[in-house]
């Protein structure tokens, strides 16, 4: 079987900027994770659980796909 490709991209940094330059710490507190986890999600080092992804979208009051996009061609 061919190894799965693709990765999850996100617009969290841009959305934070658009929401009054919200800090990672503020976002982390609102979704119930550590600041380092927000940093890892933002940097593409960690794909969040569905629950955390929905919480992030809820904070920014946007649909999930506005925050996260799947790039099937990414390695």
């Amino acid at each position, binding site marked *: 079987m061919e190894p799965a490709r693709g990765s999850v991209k996100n617009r969290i940094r841009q959305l934070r900027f658009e929401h009054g330059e919200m800090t990672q710490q503020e976002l982390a507190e609102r979704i119930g994770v550590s600041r*380092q*986890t927000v940093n890892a999600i933002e940097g593409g080092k960690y794909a969040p659980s569905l629950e955390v992804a929905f919480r992030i979208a809820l904070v920014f009051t946007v649909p999930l796909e506005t925050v996260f996009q799947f790039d099937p061609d990414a390695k």
Partner: protein
Amino acid sequence: MTVVSRIFDIMSSRAVTGEARLSTSFAEKSVWIQLIGVAVALGLYFVVAGWMLARGITILPAFAGVFVVAVVLLVTILVGGHLVAALVGRPEPTDVRDREIEGRAESRTGWILATGVIGAIGALVVAVEPVWVAHLLLLSLYLAELARLALQLVYYRRGM
């Protein structure tokens, strides 16, 4: 930023990935403390136990005192390390990423302990002395813990 906090950050980011400094979460600091504690305390135990075995001491209770000292040292490092980490930074509960990292690291290193257990059973079957069986089990536990903690740190820095 305090010196201790800076040491944690240097250990966790620059040494492993060479990336720009990223502050370390309390959970990650805790993993560093556990790794150092286990490596030092049980490492010293194996040095002393190896020396005793080399001198022909094979009575298991003779190792109990050394083991107790190693456990006390381990607890001291863990308590002291977490105390310092809590003083230099705000302690936070583990989150979903911490638990996922721990679970994944555990699932990928569990075979080390399993191999040791199977080896110990095999050793019992061929009537190897209990002192060797006990140390085989302890060594497999030691190596499994070191591998798990090291893998957790890789996941924290490199991502999953």
